[in-house]
C-alpha cells in the first residue's frame, strides 16, 4: 500500500553569497517523507543537513542564503515560493522544529509556559488562559514533573534535559504534521539522550507526527528512523531503509561512517578505519564525485563525472560509480547482518 507523502523535496539547491564567493551548501537534494514516518539525515558538519532542514522551514537567512532552484512540496502544496507571511502561518502550526542547543533556542526572559502558549495563541486563537492550561498539559506530556510550577519558571531554572523537553513541548504544542529535530540530543549526556529519544518515539506513535531527525551519530538513528539519508558535501550520497544502510550499504562514505565508530559490543580492539583527509571546499565543489579525493576505491571516472543514483531496490539508492555494471568488484568492509 502506498503511504501518503507529507513532504517531498525535489532537486533542492541552496547557496549562500558571502564576500568570498558563493558557497554551494546544498547541491541537488531530493527525498520524501511519508505520513507518520521518521527519517534521519546523517552526515558530518558542513554536509548541508541542517541547511536542508532549515530550507524546508524557510529559516535560512535570506540574504545571504537563497534557494536557487528545486521544489519543496509540503502536504501537497509547493511552499518554495511562499511569502514570509504565508510561511509564518505554517511554521509552528503545521511544522515544528527542535534545535540542537536548548539553552540558546529558548527565550531566557520569558517563562517556559508562556513560550509554549505563544504558538497556541497565535495559531489556534486560544485565549491566554486556555493556552496556559494547554501549555501545562504539554509539559506533562513530555514528562516534566510538577508541570504547574514548572510552567511559571524561566529556562535557566531547567536542566539541559528538561530544556530539551520544553523545546519538544513548544514544537508539538499545535500538533504539527511535521517535526524537524536538528541534532536534538547532541548537547545532552547519554542517559538524558536515551530519555529524549524514548520520548520522541513515544510521541511519534501517540500523535502520528512525521519526523526528520538530523544527526551525525549513526547509533542514534538505528532504533528511531525507518529510512536514512546519508549526505556528503551538499548531496545525498546514499538513501535507503535502516536495514539497507546498516547491513548492505553501497557507498564508500557510508562504509567509512560505519567503520570509524568503535562498537561497544565489538570483541577485540580492532584498529579504527578512519576516513582520511577532510571534506571538500564548497566554494568550489569538485567536478566529479565530491568524496573521490578521500575514497580509497576512487577510479578515474570519479574525478571526471558526477555519479548518478544507482538503484539497489525500490528505496535504496547510492550515488557511486562502484554500482555501475562496468565497475570493478571491490571487497566490502561491511559484511552484513549479524556480523560484527
Amino acid at each position, binding site marked *: 500500500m502506498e503511504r501518503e507523502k507529507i513532504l517531498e523535496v525535489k532537486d533542492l539547491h541552496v547557496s549562500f553569497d558571502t564576500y568570498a564567493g558563493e558557497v554551494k551548501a546544498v547541491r541537488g537534494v531530493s527525498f520524501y517523507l511519508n505520513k507518520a514516518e521518521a527519517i534521519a539525515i546523517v552526515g558530518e558538519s558542513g554536509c548541508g543537513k541542517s541547511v536542508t532542514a532549515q530550507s524546508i522551514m524557510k529559516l535560512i537567512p535570506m540574504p545571504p542564503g537563497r534557494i536557487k532552484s528545486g521544489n519543496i512540496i509540503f502536504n501537497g502544496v509547493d511552499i518554495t515560493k511562499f511569502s514570509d507571511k504565508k510561511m509564518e502561518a505554517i511554521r509552528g502550526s503545521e511544522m515544528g522544529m527542535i534545535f540542537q542547543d536548548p539553552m540558546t533556542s529558548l527565550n531566557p526572559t520569558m517563562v517556559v509556559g508562556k513560550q509554549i502558549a505563544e504558538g497556541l495563541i497565535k495559531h489556534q486563537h486560544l485565549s491566554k488562559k486556555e493556552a496556559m492550561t494547554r501549555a501545562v498539559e504539554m509539559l506533562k506530556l513530555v514528562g516534566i514533573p510538577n508541570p504547574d510550577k514548572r510552567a511559571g519558571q524561566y529556562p535557566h531554572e531547567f536542566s539541559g534535559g528538561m530544556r530539551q523537553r520544553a523545546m519538544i513541548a513548544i514544537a508539538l504544542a499545535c500538533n504539527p504534521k511535521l517535526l524537524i529535530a536538528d541534532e536534538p540530543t547532541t548537547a545532552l549526556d547519554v542517559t*538524558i539522550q536515551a530519555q529524549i529519544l524514548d520520548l520522541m518515539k513515544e510521541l511519534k506513535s501517540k500523535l502520528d507526527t512525521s519526523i526528520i531527525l538530523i544527526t*551525525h551519530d549513526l*547509533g542514534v538513528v*538505528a532504533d528511531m528512523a525507518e529510512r536514512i539519508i546519508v549526505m556528503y558535501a551538499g548531496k545525498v550520497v546514499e538513501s535507503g531503509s535502516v536495514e539497507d544502510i*546498516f547491513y548492505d550499504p553501497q557507498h564508500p562514505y557510508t562504509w567509512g561512517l560505519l567503520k570509524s*565508530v568503535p562498537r561497544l559490543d565489538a570483541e577485540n580492539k580492532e584498529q579504527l578505519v578512519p576516513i582520511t583527509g577532510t571534506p571538500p571546499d564548497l566554494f568550489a565543489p569538485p567536478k566529479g564525485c565530491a568524496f573521490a579525493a578521500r575514497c580509497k576505491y576512487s577510479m578515474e571516472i570519479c574525478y571526471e563525472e558526477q555519479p548518478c543514483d544507482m538503484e539497489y531496490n525500490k528505496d535504496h539508492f547510492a550515488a557511486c560509480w562502484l554500482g555501475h555494471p562496468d565497475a570493478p568488484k571491490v571487497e566490502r568492509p561491511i559484511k552484513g547482518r549479524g556480523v560484527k
Partner: protein
Amino acid sequence: MENKKLIEVKDLKKYFNVGNNAILKAVDGLNFFIREGETLGLVGESGCGKSTAGRTIIRLYEATGGEVIFDGINVHKLDKKGAKDFTKKAQMIFQDPYASLDPRMTVGDIIGEGIDIHNLYTGKERMERIYELLHTVGLNREHANRFPHEFSGGQRQRIGIARALAVEPQFIVCDEPISALDVSIQAQVVNLLINLQREKKLTYLFIAHDLSMVKHISDRVGVMYLGTMVELASSTELYKRPTHPYTQALMSAIPIADPDVEKARKRILLEGDVPSPINPPPGCRFKARCRYATERCSQEIPEFREIDKDHFVACHNV
C-alpha cells in the same frame, strides 16, 4: 609482568567555593592508580568531575585534600623548580581545539613554547624538532608559519597533540580530545594517539563521555558519578560485567549502530537528572536515581572495594 604504578591518586578532593557559603564538591575522594604505559579511561556525564580530576592530577588546580603521587613524588607539594620539572613530565590535550590555541601565535611558536621554557633545543635544532613534531602528528613543515585559524578542527587537535609531545612527557591527560570533532576525524585522532603511545611508551589518562570510544582506547576504565568513582575495571570486564547500577544504566543508554541489536535490547532508563554537586545528598550519591536503593544507601557512603581482581565498585548492594 605488570608495569609499575606511575601515578597514584589517594583520596583526592577538589572543592570550589561558589559564594553564598556554598561549596561545590567537584571531586570528592578519588582513589586509583595508573600503571606505566597504560591508558586509563575516565567516563561520566557532564558535571561528574572527570575534567576537574584530570586537571587536579596535573596540578592545573591545587587539590583541596588528598594527594597525587607521580613517580614517587607528591605533585601538590612541589617547590617552584619541582613544579617546572613536573610540567615536562606531564602534559595535557584539551577538549576544544578552537579555544586552547593562542590565536596570535604561529603554530611553530605554539609547539616551540615548551621547548623554549625547558631549554631543550635552540636555534636550528629547535626548528628541526618542531618540523619533526609536525610530521609525527601528520602535518607538514610548511604549517609551522601559519596561525591556528587557518586549520580545521581535526588539524588543530593535531597541533595540540604536537604541543603536548614537544617536551617529551611520560604522561598525557587527554581531556575529551575528540568530542568536538566529526566522526570520521575522530578515528584519525584516536589512531594517532594509539600509535604515539606504542612508539613513545606514553601513559594516558583519557577523559571522555563517549563510552564506546573510551572502551576502544583504554586498558582500564573508571566510571565517575557526582565527584566520586563508582566503578573501575578493565575495559572488557567493565563491558561484560558492569556491576554498579549506574554503570549498567550508562552502558544500556549508549546507542549501538546496529538496528537489530538496538531493537532487541532493553534500556535501563534513569529517571531525572544528575543532582547538583553543591551540597550533595548524604550517603550514596547515586541513590536518588537508583532502582535498588535501600535505607542503608541514604545513610552510609559505600566503600570503594575490590570485588574481583582489579574490579572495584562502590555500592552496598553488590
